[in-house]
């Protein structure tokens, strides 16, 4: 069954690149959101297999969005994979606390990034 992926990133270029990667190489269905708020709305209305989420975003950053997802019974079971350019130890500690499924560091290889997601999610490919 086709996987349904939500990409949340405020950088339009990165959204485009990840979307191509997901759709062209993995053949999954990609949806995009340019902010945490937009991402939350989609998460509440769509059936999603995973959310690929940036951390540094205006208005609502990735940490806040994760907390909002966990606080809502409708969305608390959706796995989250973080796509981040953050590199500090403090940030890693915060990801661990958020109970995210995995972290992929930017920049990443667009051809294989979907494989990383599948491995994190333990999906057979």
């Amino acid at each position, binding site marked *: 069954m086709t996987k349904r992926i939500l990409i949340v990133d405020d950088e339009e270029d990165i959204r*485009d690149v990840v979307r191509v990667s997901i759709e062209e190489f993995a053949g999954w269905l990609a949806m995009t959101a340019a902010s945490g708020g937009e991402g939350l709305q989609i998460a509440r209305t769509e059936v999603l297999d995973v959310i690929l989420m940036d951390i*540094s975003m205006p208005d609502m950053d990735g940490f806040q969005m994760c907390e909002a997802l966990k606080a809502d019974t409708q969305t608390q079971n959706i796995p989250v994979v973080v796509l981040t*350019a*953050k590199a*500090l130890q*403090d940030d890693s500690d915060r990801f661990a606390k958020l109970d995210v499924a995995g972290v992929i560091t930017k*920049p990443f*290889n667009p051809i294989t990034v979907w494989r990383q997601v599948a491995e994190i999610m333990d999906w057979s490919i």
Partner: protein
Amino acid sequence: MPIAPHRIFRSSITNLPLRWVLTVPFILPTIGAVVVVGYLAHRNDQVAVENLGHQLVEETNARVTQELKEYLQTPILINRLNVDAVSQGLLDVENVSALESTLFYRLQQFEQVSAVFFATPQGKFRLVDRLPELHPALYLVIADPPNPEQIFIYRLNSDGSPGELIQTNEGLDVRYDRPWYQRAVATGQPGWNPISQYGSLEFLTLDASQPVYDRATGQLLGVFAVHIRLDYLSEFLHGLNISRDGRVIIMDQSGALIATSTREQLHQFGSGTDYHRQFVQRNIVESQDDLTRSLGEYLRDRTGELDALDALNELDETQNFDFRYNGELQYVKIKPHQDQYGLNWRIVTVIPKSHFSKAIQDNARQTLLLCLLTLATAVLLGMLAADKLTARLAQLNRASQKLAAGNLDQRLPTDSIVYELNGLAKAFNQMADQLQQSFDRIQTALEESEEKFTIVFRTSPDPMAIATLAEGRMLEVNDSLLKFFGYARAEMVGRTALELNLWCSLVQRQHYRALLQRQRSVRNLETQLRTKSGEIKTVLLSAEIRTLEGQDCLIVAHRDITERARLEADRKTTENALRESEERFRQIAENINQLFFVRSAETGQFLYISPAYEKIWGRTCESLYQDPDSWLESLHPDDRLFVLNSIQTQTQGSPTHREYRILRPSGEVRWIAAEISLIVNKTGQTLSYTGFAEDITDRKQTEQALQEREAMLRAIGDNLPKGFIYQRVYEPGKGFYYSYISAGIERLLGLKPETVLENPKAIRGVGFAEDLAHADQVIQESLMHLTPVELQMRNRTINGDIQWSSIRSTPRRLADGRIVWDGIEVDITDLKRAEAALRASEEQFRRAFDDAPTGVSLVRITGQFVKVNARYCDLLGYTEAELLLMTFQEITHPADLDKDLEGLQRMLTGEIDSFQLEKRYITKQGAIVPVLMHAALIYDPDGQPLYSVGHVQDIRDRLKVERMKEEFISVVSHELRTPLTSIRGALGILGSGVFDDRPEKAKHMLQIAINNSDRLVNLVNDILNLERLKSGKVQLVREQCQVADLMHQAIDSVQPIADQAEITLSCIPLFTILWAAPDAIIQTLINLLSNAIKFSSAGGTVWLKAEMKGEWGVGSGEIENREVSKDAAYTRTGTTTGKEQSEPLSFHSSSPAPYILFSIKDQGRGIPQDKLEIIFEQFQQVDVSDSRKKGGTGLGLVICKNIVQQHGGQIWAESRLGEESTFYFTLPLLVGDDHDKADSDCG
């Protein structure tokens, strides 16, 4: 010991007549049995009566209830029969004659009711009623539409056919005027109606009514109803015949009477006429029947309600009461009576107790009378029998009593019918005969005895008397007594010893009487008695108590021992005086440590030697008594001759004192001091020697030790290495002088001891004037108060050096009034030098401690602070005094305490010498301060750890720098990786060939890569520029430039993007020359203009303006005094530090240099106030996404700030959110020296 109860009984009951003893034990149980039987019978009667009463009232009430129920069922039944007849088609209510006939038939059928009737909604009304008071009794009442208020009353024939019209009435329309119709129509149900007037008559009626409907249409056909007259109900209750004095009462919930068995009038009619009479039902408390009213009041009081019997509402259950009426108990039962048709009554049944208890009481009274009669008979018979039996015994008793009283001729008859009584009488008569004979013998012996006594009494040489015991009144005295006391017989007989004043001492008399009282006789009691002539005689008194002629008397005998007693007393006095004298002497002689002796001059023998001889000489006194010169054997050989010479002198008659040594038998040497005196007679002849000798060895030894110590002291004084000892004396009238100075003074002060002893003032020559003045003051003080002297003084040595001395002396006052100071003066010059060095060292340490830039603390190993420096106090916010009361544990962050204590412990165990720790303190204000602490131990001279010294460095700034560095790396990392991610992603996708056949998508990817490459290039350039600007590696090349040119160049550069964004640029140039780096200023203007254009909406305007501010040689110019509107936010940033920036605007306030103020204003979205300052920090944009949307790197304003700062200017922004933003920066115009300096700076 407790007394047995039967003994108490026996002792309390005595002397009871035999008649009582024989009758009472039989009569008392009989009376008791009768009383108990009578009481039990009465009590059982009471219980039986009570149970019977409750049972009867219960049954009566039940019967009344049952019969009332049946009675009241009738009207309901009649209505139902009528309604059923209509429903089943048996009766057509339109058929008037059939209706009338049915109503007549029903009335005939049921005699309990008084009227049966029917009314239709149209106004047709038929009523058949029975009035037994009239004759004939049956009537038909008719009303018809259209005049339903017109009532026709016909007499009814016995077959039910209407007879003559007897009355026509008006004014009643039952449909509106009677509740039975209205209730039935309103509820549609059968039921009871409120009590109302019976037609136009003065009766009350209880009506039952039921509506009837057309079965097909459900339309109301009419209402059937039945009257029950309430007086019929009372009659019915009366007919129940429950009891002559009992009552049955029916009332409603409010206590209004419905019916009673007393047939009293229960209502009163008032105003109104015919069919509309007002009436009032009587309440139970208003009843005319006394019992009923009392019951009502009882019920009201019982519930505590004063104005109504509301409590009856609560009587939903059957209740029983016992209530007293005129003192008689009434059994009351109240039972609610309710039915499904809305009846809610209370049935009260009252039955007086007397109704059924009279017969029982009569029976009980009869039983009681019979019991009493039986009892009286039993008592009478018992008493008669006892009387007969006791008559003889009473006679025996009387005769015995007379016999006992001395009447010995008592004899009893022996003819009684009882055998035992005759035996008793014979025994009594024999006993009386024997008593008579014994009495006669005793009488004879007594007379002989009395005669003997009288002879002895009269002829006795000892004074004797017979007196009464009670008063001591003399009954008889003998001649010896009269002679002894010198009284005549008549004077003594009949008087008491007290009256005759015979007793010398009343105490002796009391003693004598007490002895008599106690032992009834006295033997040889020594007593002083007074004769008539007043002479005191000592007698031995003997007395005995005897009963003479029926009264207790005293027989008293005296023996005169006056002479013997006097001789005895004299002897005792002499002996006592001698004994006391001897005792005193002996005690003195034996208790003193001195030897005392008396030696006869004639014989040379010792007359007395005190025991001290044995102690001092170690020889026995006995040896000296035997050989008077044996003490000479003990003399020390060295003193022997001296003593013998002294004895020679002594024998020539002069008192002698000598001190000599003896050798004790143990070989011990003792010193003796002896004092000998002579006792001579009147002729001068020596009778004896008396002497004292004492052991003075201790005194001799002390004197010797004193001499030795003085020699030693002198040796010490003379040998003191750097000092001397002295004795200084103050003698009144002579002043101060030295009595002794040791040789050391010469070495110390260069003065010979003799010099100073001769001239005490010589010593002042080496002193300093101020020290001497102080010393004089101290010594004067010591002279007055005998206080010790302690001084430190300087002296000049022979070499001219200063020498320090410490002088200590202690004064004492001698018996002759002199005051002596024993003192020592020692050289302390070296000590003084060491002290000075130590003070300097301590001062250095103190300054190092107090002024240290880091916090320093000294704590005990328990953690208690001992010393802290100012920096430490500043760091923690406590004062030094506060910290010295605390421990370091109290101010250490709990999470860091274990680490700290562990370090301390490792130092204490010697594992480490010191340790370093990053820890947190909690300040007095509660703030957390991170510090770097270095701790080490300080030991005491024994090597025991004493204190821990801690150096504490505030590392808040260091941590802040570290945090900022981390944040910067994080931001730069993000800013670099983000475009790289897009580039890498786009190129990766292109490289994969996935868009080979979709060129437009491939182009999009390519564009992404290009855009992000540009962004990356700009970012790298900006970072490098900024770094160069900051590090000063690129020096701005300043030159003279026209401000207007710079502005135009900047405008030209941004014009294309302004056009693209449809923004108008407005420029107000300033034509003046500026000393600046033109490229840098143009870049600053371009950056600020680009920002303004980017954040403006299409159609907006951006203004660029430059103004000259300040004046040559005038004050600081407009900028200092600029007023800032309240709603306009502003900030500025310049060469000043953050702290200085928070102060009021004062650009070069001390230097009145003119400057140019540039301003770039837009109509964009504005900047929130909290962002106005941080936008000049690296990567700090108002909105993070601005860098993407607006193409900025987040470094533009930072670069501007750096350029302006390098020119010595300031930059800031003001904004109204949502309206406008204005960026300002200033550049100073350099002149004169500044100009030259700037030239040289710029190379």
